[in-house]
């Protein structure tokens, strides 16, 4: 590593930027492709069938074949659509999703940029998610798509609120929005992770509930089952994506999985200690480079465990009804999130009073 840095000399920051650019794009693309394969395999396991088996061993080349098929199909623009918005929507969906990786830290040295406002960058970029899905639905000039985009908006507006309230609760405990520092605070044993630390330091004993709220909101924000009313296949064909073909549809599909990866990475960073192994100083005999790899492994273990739970939920929970969805947010999640916020702010200020 240091040999490469020396070789590049003063050009290293630019080389590093390029490496991160390529690496992020590859990571996002491969994740999108192979999470589809995982999703199919998990679905097959739940439904007691083998899943994709034909292309490659265990169907491992299936995502490549799917990508080739999507790329080779014709980009159809139906005559009645609003052409400009129809073409902009999938691009406006994928770009902010990919940009989130700029601030997500995957290791001590594996963060493209480290800025004070990392957490806010992710939320500011995820704001484009709703507007692009909605534009896709509206510009398609299709009744199913319009119903879908109306659902997307009310769902995302409803779930954005408890999500941001939970995040504010966590920021009160961590005192920073820099994702690198947030992970750094959670070093040592696993009870130092934010999800458990609040309990024994009495900073906020309800952090596990905050984590649950964050997870539910993430499912709703990424339009995953049981909250996938926006693309409810049995009612709305494919919702906002009905009129899209070829990579127009492919980009939406990619963006969905990239958003899941971003959401689960964020949950890992904020609540589960990021790249910290949680094993205290048991691993301190490892040299630096090995520790970095172990950290990356710990991050991916947590990340993919969460993604597995997301898929598991999709194939075992039935889709909720729309009123159930909105009631859950407005009548359960928001009051509970407000209460945890209140409790957290009281507990933060309480020691200063005495």
């Amino acid at each position, binding site marked *: 590593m240091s040999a490469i840095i020396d070789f590049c000399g003063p050009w290293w920051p*630019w080389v590093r930027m390029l490496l991160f650019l390529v690496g992020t794009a590859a990571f996002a693309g491969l994740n999108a492709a192979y999470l589809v394969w995982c999703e199919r395999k998990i679905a097959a396991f739940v439904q007691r069938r083998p899943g994709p088996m034909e292309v490659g061993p265990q169907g491992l080349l299936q995502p490549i074949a799917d990508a080739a098929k999507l790329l080779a199909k014709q980009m159809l623009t139906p005559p009645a659509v609003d052409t400009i918005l129809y073409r902009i929507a999938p691009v406006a969906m994928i770009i902010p999703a990919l940009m989130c990786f700029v601030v997500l830290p995957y290791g001590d040295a594996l963060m493209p940029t480290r800025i*004070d406002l990392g957490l*806010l960058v992710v939320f500011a970029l995820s*704001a484009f998610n*709703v*507007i692009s899905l*909605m534009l896709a639905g509206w510009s398609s000039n299709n009744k199913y798509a319009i119903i879908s985009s109306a659902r997307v908006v009310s769902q995302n507006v409803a779930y954005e609120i408890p999500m941001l309230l939970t995040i504010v609760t966590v920021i009160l405990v961590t005192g920073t929005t820099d994702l690198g520092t947030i992970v750094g605070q959670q070093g040592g044993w696993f009870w130092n992770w934010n999800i458990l630390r609040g309990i024994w330091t009495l900073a906020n004993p309800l952090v596990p509930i905050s984590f649950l709220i964050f997870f539910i909101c993430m499912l709703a924000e990424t339009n995953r089952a049981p909250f996938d009313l926006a693309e409810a296949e049995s009612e709305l064909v494919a919702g906002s994506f009905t009129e899209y073909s070829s990579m127009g549809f492919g980009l939406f599909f990619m963006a969905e999985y990239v958003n899941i990866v971003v959401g689960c990475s964020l949950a890992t960073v904020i609540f589960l200690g990021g790249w910290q192994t949680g094993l205290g100083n048991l691993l301190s005999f490892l040299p630096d480079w090995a520790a970095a790899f172990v950290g990356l492994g710990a991050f991916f273990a947590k990340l993919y465990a969460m993604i597995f739970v997301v898929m598991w939920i999709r194939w075992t929970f039935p889709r909720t009804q729309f009123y159930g969805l909105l009631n859950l947010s407005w009548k359960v999640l928001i009051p509970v999130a407000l209460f945890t916020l209140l409790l957290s702010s009281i507990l933060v200020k309480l020691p200063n009073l005495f």
Partner: protein
Amino acid sequence: MSSSVLLPLAEVTPLPGSTYIIPALFLFFFATTVAGALVAVAAQRIIRGVCGLAVCCLGLAGLYYFLNSPFLALMELLIYVGAVCVTIIFAVMLAEPDEPAPTGSLPRRLCGAAATVVVAGAIFWSLARLGVFGRWPTLALDTRDWSVQKIGVELLTTYSFAFEAISLVLLVAILGALAIARSGRHNA
């Protein structure tokens, strides 16, 4: 290791032509703001107008970043693109799908257009004049530090009255929405 990996950008060898990158980015954001604003006012269909507004907010966020205020830039995206534009589009979706064709005779519409141009021109001229020649109050705080911490402390000390007044307006709006929603469901 991390210190050698993350060099501060000031010590970085500039790429050839990088002195043009920053002005080019500034011009890009400026052009985005103006183009978005033009689309917002000139679009025939209201959804396109809202998209123009979103693009305009995106450009504004970039300009805020150039004013050394990344926090404000991110808030511009989070609130104006993520909440305000979405709410406007949602309201439009609940209304008629297509705008009705303009009514009234041609001379009457032309009179309306002329009156609009006069009023808008007067507002623009007075604002521009105020901006260029007006005497601006001196800054209460002469500082370059616009970190989140600084903004938070200022909002809760120096500007706490304005802050509370704005939250009162929001509270009234929320209460009004609740009052309407509460009686509306039983009547329907």
